[in-house]
């Protein structure tokens, strides 16, 4: 009797694990099968190297480059904003702040992660952009800069929280050894603890990048909806995610070419986030047990 109930539980646990795997396989299957029709009509070379993306208009081009540069531009700006701030915050929380401050500050920081992204989008469009326009001439209403900066603010908690965990996990003995050598607190923090926690920090950065690459609402609202092959942050750009939203909100016929473009864009995005996740997994695995 006992054995059968054990077995049932075991099967239940295993099947709930399998559900997530099946979902992933299902998503990959849909992406591949739906974009198959797209790549049957558009040669891969055109998809990768054409510099225009206008599948909805009369002069059709299917070059993914403008969407890719849009995605990378906003992500890069977000990282430039979030990286220094996130790491400095993490170092402060783990090395400098006393227990009370840390207890209050950490949850407060995580509130940033709880703000709905659509709110961030309107914040970028109606507050940050007009502010930037006061001192950056020629800044378009929809631009990569303000969307990127706000996206950076959004991923600060991802980076600071995970980095702080990594810094905190660095053994006390390392710090004490550093002090014993006569190093100051600042030298200890940045020359000893940060390098020691570098793998955890790197993972946090990669997860931040993955979050920024996949982010949708902020860029759809504040960065514009015009595929634009440019690296000028003052211009409006369209990211892969924003394109998918734009097309899904309008009316495209099932199985039309416009419909298939969503999946071609989707599979490109998937490949990037898949790659980032694997790199972070690999780094974690390789450096995890260095100090134990």
């Amino acid at each position, binding site marked *: 009797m006992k054995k059968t109930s054990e077995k049932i539980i075991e099967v239940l646990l295993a099947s709930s694990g399998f559900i997530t795997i099946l979902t992933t396989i299902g998503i990959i299957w849909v992406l591949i099968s739906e974009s198959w029709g797209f790549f049957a009509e558009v040669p891969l070379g055109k998809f990768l190297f054409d510099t225009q993306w206008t599948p909805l*208009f*009369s002069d059709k*081009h299917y070059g993914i480059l403008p969407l890719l540069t849009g995605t990378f531009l906003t992500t890069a700006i977000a990282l430039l904003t979030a990286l220094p701030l996130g790491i400095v915050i993490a170092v402060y929380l783990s090395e400098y702040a006393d227990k009370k401050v840390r207890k209050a500050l950490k949850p407060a920081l995580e509130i940033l992660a709880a703000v709905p992204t659509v709110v961030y989008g309107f914040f970028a469009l109606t507050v940050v952009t*007009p502010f930037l*326009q006061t001192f950056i001439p020629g800044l*378009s209403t929809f631009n990569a800069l303000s969307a990127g900066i706000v996206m950076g603010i959004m991923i600060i908690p991802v980076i600071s929280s995970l980095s702080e965990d990594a810094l905190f996990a660095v053994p006390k003995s390392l710090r004490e050894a550093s002090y014993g050598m006569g190093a100051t607190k600042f030298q200890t923090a940045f020359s000893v603890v940060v390098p020691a926690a570098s793998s955890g920090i790197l993972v946090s950065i990669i997860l931040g990048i993955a979050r920024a690459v996949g982010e949708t609402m902020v860029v759809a609202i504040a960065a514009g909806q015009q595929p634009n092959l440019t690296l000028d942050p003052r211009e409006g750009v369209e990211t892969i995610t924003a394109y998918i939203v*734009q097309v899904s*909100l*309008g*009316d495209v016929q099932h199985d039309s070419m416009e419909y298939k473009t969503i999946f071609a864009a989707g599979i490109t995005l998937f490949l990037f986030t898949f790659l980032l996740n694997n790199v972070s997994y690999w780094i974690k695995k390789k450096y995890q047990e260095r100090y134990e």
Partner: protein
Amino acid sequence: MKSNFQLIWAAGAMMVILSACGSKDNSAETANDATKLKGEIKIDGSSTVYPITEAVAEEFRNEQPDVKITVGLSGTGGGFKKFGRGEIDINDASRPIKPQEDSICKQNNVGFVELKVAFDGLAIVVSKENTWLNEITIEELKKIWEPAAQRKVTKWNQVNPKWPNEEFRLYGAGVASGTYDYFTEAVVGKSGASRGDYTASEDDNVLVQGVSGDKNGLAFFGLAYYEENKERLKLVPVNNGSGAVLPTAETVKNGTYAPLSRPVFIYVTEAAARRKDVNAFVNFYLQTAAELVPDVGYIALPQEEYRAQLAKFQDFAGAKQ
């Protein structure tokens, strides 16, 4: 907290009083169907017609609070797709139905009636900061928007040598929008033909936001959205060869603001027209349109035209009952 509740009560009372005033003159006409109706009316379609339908629906809710009305805005084309499948009762349309949409309706046995509800002008607008663009010709608009201009015509002085040597940024209706079909037909000469490198959105508020903060922006959208955002935008008179004309109630109605003025419609399915709730709503729509249409920034049809549309609808609904 208490004062907040009082405020809400006061506001509620005010709204009841105001709406009572607003609908006083129709109450006599609708008295014959004063019985309380129940139901759910699904409306979708053009974002251009949306403000009119939404205004009528709001008034109608005061009379028939148990009739639930939802008004969507997925564009004229998007709406017609749902309409042809019989998923919605009424479609807002900023252009007449296309032959292929008509044949889909026929295939699915969806009968319908077309009712004209207002006039709209397409406004060409720039930012308030643009001090030099004081009129534009249809030729110049074509040079900017035709498919051949894609990535080739990008600066003002390529269109007209008198204009500055600076890059422009364009904002316009998206491809699912009736406004897009209408604009491309009127300006480029072929419906659905335009350049693709501009900010395209079915949501006119996005376009307003875009062009109002952009010194080198140029946009087109329904006149009503200009009226709503007057203080942030500058309207550009359009010259079709016989002098520059600003879109106003007068010039749109009498046709001098050509070719960028047009009638807008609602389409009602046969099955819906038979229903009491929809029937009462459409009657109410055509009776109050003359009063509500100018409120939301559009140009009303002449009173006799509304009567003719009402007669057309009643014939249609009556014959089917």
